[in-house]
């Protein structure tokens, strides 16, 4: 049955879902924008972030929303390791090598997670607010959804301040525009790359924690979000934070609406994953450079 309250509920789920995608896509966009690097293992950082937050929450009894900080910090360190020991080694070779090394990293991360996984099934970060919700007319919004949306907004504001108001942000933007010229201006480009990768990975860690609070996850959960984050970046336009926000919300809402509709109309559940790509292909056929993109790579 399709009802107005059901639709409103699906809309809220969609916005929260979109928020997780926005964080992931922004991190990926940052790395792509500054380093022109395609990190297909970004979703695995989301999974690792969720897992670290789960361990911190269950072992140390920390509030899951405080564990975001731990998760961001540790995933940033992992990101630095990835850049230093893998991606920096193949800089300047074939573009397809980047996808290839990401595939290797996917194997590494997923199987490390499987080795230390507490049980063989999906787990979820326990939240103390799971049963609490704010009634709003016919629908109820869970506290967790409100927190997630607030945290995403706060992180995005912080990111904009970092890139627009600080010296290192200026250096990042300079490197993004022209790496060689930035080098001539005395910017240590390699250090900027490391920093960018760390920030991007930290965003993935944060989105992973939120993902783990809102949904259950397992070691292989990262693959599809990566691809969807890429689709969001392309839809919104490369290097555009507003584009990522619009794209992420659009995808999140489209997905949860499809999931809701499919229960009402007897449509296969797999369309929930396909809808993002149908949107993407439709947009690219009309506008080959994306919604907000000025030019391609």
């Amino acid at each position, binding site marked *: 049955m399709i009802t107005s309250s059901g639709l409103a509920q699906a809309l809220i789920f969609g916005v929260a879902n979109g928020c997780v995608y926005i964080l992931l896509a922004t991190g990926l966009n940052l790395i792509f924008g500054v380093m022109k690097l395609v990190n297909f293992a970004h979703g695995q950082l989301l999974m690792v972030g969720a897992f670290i937050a789960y361990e911190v929450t269950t072992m140390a009894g920390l509030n899951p929303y405080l564990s975001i900080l731990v998760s961001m910090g540790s995933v940033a360190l992992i990101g630095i390791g990835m850049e230093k020991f893998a991606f920096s080694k193949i800089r300047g070779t074939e573009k397809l090598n980047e996808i290839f090394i990401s595939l290797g990293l996917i194997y590494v991360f997923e199987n490390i997670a499987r*080795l230390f996984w507490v049980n063989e099934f999906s787990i979820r970060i326990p939240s103390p607010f799971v049963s609490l919700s704010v009634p709003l007319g016919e629908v109820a919004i869970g506290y967790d959804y409100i927190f997630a949306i607030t945290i995403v907004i706060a992180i995005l504001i912080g990111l904009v301040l970092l890139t627009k108001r600080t010296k290192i942000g200026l250096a990042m933007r300079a490197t993004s525009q022209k790496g060689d010229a930035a080098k001539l201006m005395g910017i240590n480009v390699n250090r900027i790359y490391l920093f960018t990768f760390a920030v991007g990975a930290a965003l993935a860690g944060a989105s992973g924690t939120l993902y783990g609070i809102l949904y259950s996850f397992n070691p292989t959960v990262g693959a599809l979000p990566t691809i969807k984050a890429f689709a969001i970046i392309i839809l919104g336009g490369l290097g555009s934070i507003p584009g990522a926000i619009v794209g992420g919300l659009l995808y999140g809402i489209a997905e949860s609406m499809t999931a809701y509709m499919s229960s009402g109309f007897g449509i296969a559940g*797999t369309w929930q994953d396909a809808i993002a790509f149908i949107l993407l292909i439709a947009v690219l056929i009309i506008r080959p450079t994306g919604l907000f993109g000025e030019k391609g790579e």
Partner: protein
Amino acid sequence: MENATKLSSFLRSRKFQYAVIAVFLVAALPLVVKSEYIIGQVFTLMLVFAIYASSWNLLAYSGQGSLGHAAFLGIGGFASALLVVKTGMPPVAGLIVGSLVSAGIGALIGLACVRLKAWFLAMVTFGFSVIVISIMTQFDSVFGGVIGFPTTPVAPQVIPFYYATLGIAVVSILTILFVMKSKLGLAFKAIRENELEAKMTGINAGKYRLLAFVISTFFAGLAGGLYAESSLFIQNSIFEPYYSFLPLIMSVVGGLSTIEGPIIGSVIIVSINSFLPLTDKYLQPLSPLFPGVSNVGPPLRLFGLGIFLILVVIFLPKGVTSLLRKGYNYLRTDTTKTKKVEPPRKNMIASENI
């Protein structure tokens, strides 16, 4: 005329002789290896994936890195299997028609892709493979892929099918080689290196990119039909992203944009997939280290595989082929050293004396 002389000089070249020897060695394998499992599930799969990876490599040769080739592998597989099962078509005709169906759909996707730049194209092709899974699940009453169904092979398993696959693989890879070496391949290469410059020299980039798509998806469909027949069964799992990434892994391990790279890559990756699980029992003693896990073998060996892939691309960015080529060139220069390398040295010394 020009093509004919090229062809005859190619047939007389050293490389061609090596290739013929290699084909004969592969054909003689069943005389040495008696295990039906190894011939049917390892050697045959190597040949099938050699076609599949070569088809992907041809598309990459034109500068279009597809991340959704599993869609065409699956479409070819399902089309040929369904035609044979439902209309009673002979399996050989089913294979050909299945490949044509794959090429037809490939042409449609290619039309959407010709205007797109690298990553955009990768996403559209990946997205297409996800959409195909949804269509297959939605109309399962027609396709029957959720549970799967048995297929009829072109030749009886195991040995006759192995030779049939070998014949098809040789013809397919030779065709791909001729495309790569012809004017068509030159145009593909020009577009890959710099599309704008290629356009300025009068190459209709859109037309050639579409052509690359059609040829590539034809052979991907053919490989799909053979893959379905080699395992005597087809299921929707053939569309999984794993099968889209497989030809990329094989081509990069072997050597991108070379004809032998995908073949070597296919041999290496299929061997790893078939024989690495045998190491599981040696990894069991490590299980006390990881208390939460019941079977410690698969994650440990796949972790090792990931490290291996990373090391390959760091130390051999041009693939295993580059190593073989280095060795081959070393051997060649070694035997002709006295003729080729010495004279210039003498000249240099002489000129220094003056």
